[in-house]
């Protein structure tokens, strides 16, 4: 598998400059063109969606339809007083948001935005994303500890326990896709989810992983639920419960520090939805269409753009569902949350792994689509 990453692509398209300049440019591009604007814009979108579901208008003063609201919020946060509570641990207080943001944003480097636009198609693709998002848990824990506030500490402990517990169903739900794809590289996993109208091609591609076999469909739902819990979103947002623990682990964080936490949360939501999209919903693959089999060969640039649009459309749909759930479902109590994880999701996830392995063994790795095709044609 060649390394199809941003830096290489940029170097081939633009042609000048050594590789390391393009590597830095692409890293900064991912951060400033993707993570930060998305984080900021997501706060605006969430408020608008919330308003719509609650039958009110939402922000509409700043810019047309209030679109520039998040920029105004950013300026407000930058200008706030740098409040440090008495008795807090200054070093950890400053370190915690940095760890959390690092964990959330570093995963962007490995997301498969298109066949030619992956920040770094590492050999351990999905393992890299999983490992980088585990940096968030110690960050939250240290931040809540250093606030010298027992409600923050309690919120942080619960948050860490929750994030850490739900990593198991998440990882176990990623396993069926690894079993099906035979590789940890995300680019490869998405490629295999293609479609082809020729018999040769159909032997290679097995359509979206969500419809590969019934177990993976359940796995996708489990991964989505686990992702909700990992990012502390409703119905799992007890750690930052607005009505119970004041604001949970980020009570004493104000101004830009809080902004960093909010940014990290939305970035993490994006990463989780992107993982579900890439692994189960075909990533940048268009359903029933194979861009390499068209009657005209499109330039790579155009293909990359189309695939990027498809990927973002799918991911944003999932992000919309995440926001929709926030205003629909009530919050789970902490023992219900833990019980759901260890007594519900983990057994189901283990069952899915074994089920997928059994299906792979019995049907020699073919998906439902491929089996139907065989039935119809042979």
């Amino acid at each position, binding site marked *: 598998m060649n390394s199809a990453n941003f830096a290489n692509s940029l170097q081939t398209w633009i042609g000048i400059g050594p590789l390391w300049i393009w590597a830095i440019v692409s890293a900064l591009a991912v951060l400033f063109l993707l993570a930060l604007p998305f984080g900021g814009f997501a706060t605006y979108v969430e408020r608008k969606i919330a308003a719509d579901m609650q039958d009110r208008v939402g922000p509409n003063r700043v810019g047309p339809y209030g679109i520039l609201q998040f920029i105004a919020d950013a300026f407000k946060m930058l200008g706030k007083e*740098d409040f440090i509570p*008495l008795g807090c641990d200054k070093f950890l207080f400053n370190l915690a948001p940095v760890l959390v943001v690092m964990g959330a944003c570093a995963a962007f480097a490995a997301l498969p935005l298109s066949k030619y636009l992956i920040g770094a198609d590492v050999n351990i693709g999905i393992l890299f994303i999983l490992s980088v998002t585990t940096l968030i848990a110690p960050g939250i824990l240290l931040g809540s500890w250093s606030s010298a506030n*027992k409600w923050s500490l309690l919120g942080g402990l619960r948050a860490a326990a929750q994030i850490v517990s739900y990593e198991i169903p998440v990882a176990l739900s990623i396993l069926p896709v690894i079993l099906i794809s*035979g590789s940890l590289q995300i680019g490869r996993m998405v490629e295999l989810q293609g479609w082809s109208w020729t018999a040769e091609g159909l032997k290679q591609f097995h359509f979206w992983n969500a419809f590969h076999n019934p177990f993976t469909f359940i796995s996708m739902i489990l991964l989505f639920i686990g992702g909700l819990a990992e990012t502390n979103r409703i119905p799992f947002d007890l750690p930052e419960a607005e009505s119970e623990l004041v604001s949970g682990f980020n009570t004493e964080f104000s101004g830009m520090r809080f902004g960093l936490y909010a940014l990290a949360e939305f970035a993490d939501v994006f990463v989780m939805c992107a993982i579900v999209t890439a692994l189960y919903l075909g990533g940048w693959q268009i359903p029933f269409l194979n861009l390499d089999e068209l009657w005209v060969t499109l330039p790579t640039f155009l293909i990359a753009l189309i695939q990027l649009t498809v990927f973002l459309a799918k991911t944003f749909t999932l992000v919309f569902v995440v926001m929709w759930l926030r205003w629909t479902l009530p919050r789970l109590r902490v023992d219900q949350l833990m019980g759901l994880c260890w007594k519900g999701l983990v057994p189901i996830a283990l069952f899915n792994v074994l089920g997928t392995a059994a299906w792979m*063994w019995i049907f020699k790795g073919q998906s439902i689509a491929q089996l139907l095709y065989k039935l119809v044609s042979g």
Partner: protein
Amino acid sequence: MMGAGALLRPRSKSNIGDKGIAYECGELPVGSAWVKFNIRFYVIAIVFIVFDVEMAAIFPPATIFRDAVLGQTPGLSPALVFLELFLFVGLLVAGLIYCWVRGDLEWVKGITGAVPKK
């Protein structure tokens, strides 16, 4: 970004009056900022580590599973691979069931009725 904030924000002291004390819904903080020890956090962390190591150990065989099942790896028959995977996962399911039945996964002991047996 934190540096930009430092340049833009007005300077002010955090220890003016009562501003710096911990926020507790407007009341003065009661007691010290400590939480009584709850062993359930620790138990959950330990159970997590066990399952985490299990998953880290399953990842490499899972990577080769597809090739083994399609018969493309010499020396590994699909049935054998499936059996090994099944054994691995099965033993840990047994461990999970043990913890469940003995009530160690309960977050709040006594409320849902499952009290850990001696």
